[in-house]
């Protein structure tokens, strides 16, 4: 098998006195969906920010297709084919959907010696892509601020998908989404994966992970608890791994086993 698309080896990341990552190794192959699970504060967001060039790791190395690289900025990572949809900020509410969608990669057309933002093309593509994700816009000039939280996240995902990269990172894309939109996102992940793109999918929801994941890595307090392949592990075992079986068992008992 060829070298993984991207491989992070023994990554450490310290913030002043806080050790957020303490040696985490994860690799992403082409066409796989690698799920990252873990409790709050386990370091999932920190880890993927390291992968996408936002943070520089304190220790460890990053290999892209076998060669060691380092990212100085998110732009570097993007150029290396790593696209990310962040948990918290992705959209700028005051700007129109089109401007947000194309932010950083605006299509241009030449007029004489000058290059201008090609709005007609941009608007058209935006409307189409949004419709594909199940969002009907009043107009592409509509400000993102007029969309609901979930709708915004959908726009961000549509954008990342449209600019299809080699590795697509999704930080809890489904946590604020409704059932239908979650299904859409999961279906999209599935489609993206089938096109040979590696997906890193972060979630708290074991069922969402089981639905699309090929491999599962559980983080705990800045360390890897282990990586499992699809089929080697079932939902209950994963849940146990994430939270420490005993507590959960008790809770499930008292709440009717439906958590």
């Amino acid at each position, binding site marked *: 098998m060829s070298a993984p698309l991207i491989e992070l080896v023994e990554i450490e990341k310290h913030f002043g006195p806080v050790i957020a990552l303490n040696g985490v190794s994860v690799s992403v192959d082409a066409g796989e969906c690698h799920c990252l699970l873990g409790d709050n504060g386990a370091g999932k967001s920190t880890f993927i920010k390291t992968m996408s060039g*936002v943070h520089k790791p304190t220790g460890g190395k990053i290999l892209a297709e076998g060669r060691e690289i380092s990212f100085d900025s998110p732009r570097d990572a993007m150029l290396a084919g790593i696209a990310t949809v962040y948990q918290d900020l*992705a959209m700028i509410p*005051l700007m129109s959907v089109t401007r947000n969608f194309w*932010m950083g990669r605006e299509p*241009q057309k030449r007029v004489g010696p000058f290059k201008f*933002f090609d709005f007609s093309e941009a608007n058209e593509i935006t409307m189409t892509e949004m419709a594909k994700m*199940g969002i009907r816009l009043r107009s592409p000039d509509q*400000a993102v601020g007029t969309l609901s939280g979930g709708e915004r996240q959908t726009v961000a995902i549509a954008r990342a998908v449209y600019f299809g990269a080699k590795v697509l990172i999704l930080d809890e894309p489904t946590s604020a989404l409704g059932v239908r939109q979650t*299904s859409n996102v999961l279906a999209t992940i599935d*489609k993206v994966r089938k096109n040979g793109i590696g997906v890193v999918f972060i979630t708290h929801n074991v069922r969402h992970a089981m639905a699309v994941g090929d491999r599962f890595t559980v983080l705990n307090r800045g360390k890897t608890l282990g990586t499992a392949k699809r089929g080697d592990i079932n939902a209950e075992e994963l849940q146990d791994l994430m939270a420490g079986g005993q507590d959960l068992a008790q809770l499930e008992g008292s709440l009717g086993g439906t958590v």
Partner: protein
Amino acid sequence: MAETQTAATPDQDERIREMSTFRKALIRPELGAICGTILVFVFFIAIAGDSGMFAPEGIINWGTVSAQFAIIAVGACLLMIAGEFDLSVGSMIGFSGIVMALMTVHWGLPAWFAILAAFALTLTIGALNGFLVIRTGLPSFIVTLASLYILRGLTIFISITTTRKTIIGGVREAAEGDPIAWLFGGKVFSGLFVWLADLGVVGKFVAGPRAGQPVVEGIPMLMIWALVLIVFGHILLTRTRFGNWVFASGGDAQAARYVGVPVNRVKILMFMFSAFCATVFATCQVMEFGSAAADRGLLKEFEAIISVVIGGALLTGGYGSVVGAALGALIFGVVQQGLFFAGVESSLFRVFLGVILLLAVILNTFIRRMITGER
């Protein structure tokens, strides 16, 4: 993914009430400024219509003042949309003027060199402002407040220690025949005005050495600069990729950074552009009047910010319009000069200005909420 496509929400519109196309076309960032401009003109035509305010010289007069405001307002506007602002504009005006005057008059360097050197210096300072803001993560209010003090102090210090004066004259003579100085201090379309004067549309001088010439000599380069900068700023902002980056940097720098917008570069460039505008302002002034003074530009930063804000921009960045800022500058200039033509006690000018500012921003906020669904 055909199934999700068909699942696209069928008629979301049931929840959006009707909004007429007319109303939609109206609500744009500069709407407030447009209304303000109309109001202000109606007001002054009513109370000062026969005072010479709308005669050709009167128009050139408030036009020049407005053009002055507009030049710094364009810089401040783009910078503000990029999410920062610059309190050192005023000090920069004083500083670059003194630098040019010192070079030409005191050290005898050619005017073109002095002008280029002043531009180079202020652009560097602008970049430094930007660099500090980016690197330290401090609010630009603080960083540029520091440069306000540092630059003003330095300006007084160098002018006092080198010439023992805070005003340095004789630049016009030194710049006579210079290849680029006329770009800032000259007047254009003189021929047009001679023709207009012959037609009787424009008055003529009746006495002195220039008897027989039209009272309006030409369009000052200041106005040309203002127009060029407004058009440039407007196109840059609304029609180019870079303009989108400016909006993005101001709207949410972090989000923009994450998608690969070179936010730092954008912000630093906008600081430099603001410094550039300040220096254009200063050069025009120095070349027109032939002297530089250490106190030039005092409080101009506020005037620039006021114009921009009247023009509908958001103080916190990410939203605004160059055309709006230009209209804000026009309102500012017309009110300032118009009160004079109307014979109002001059100390009341500030009261007016404060009231206009308040009304304008309230109107603008209202319009903006309609557009952006901001809550």
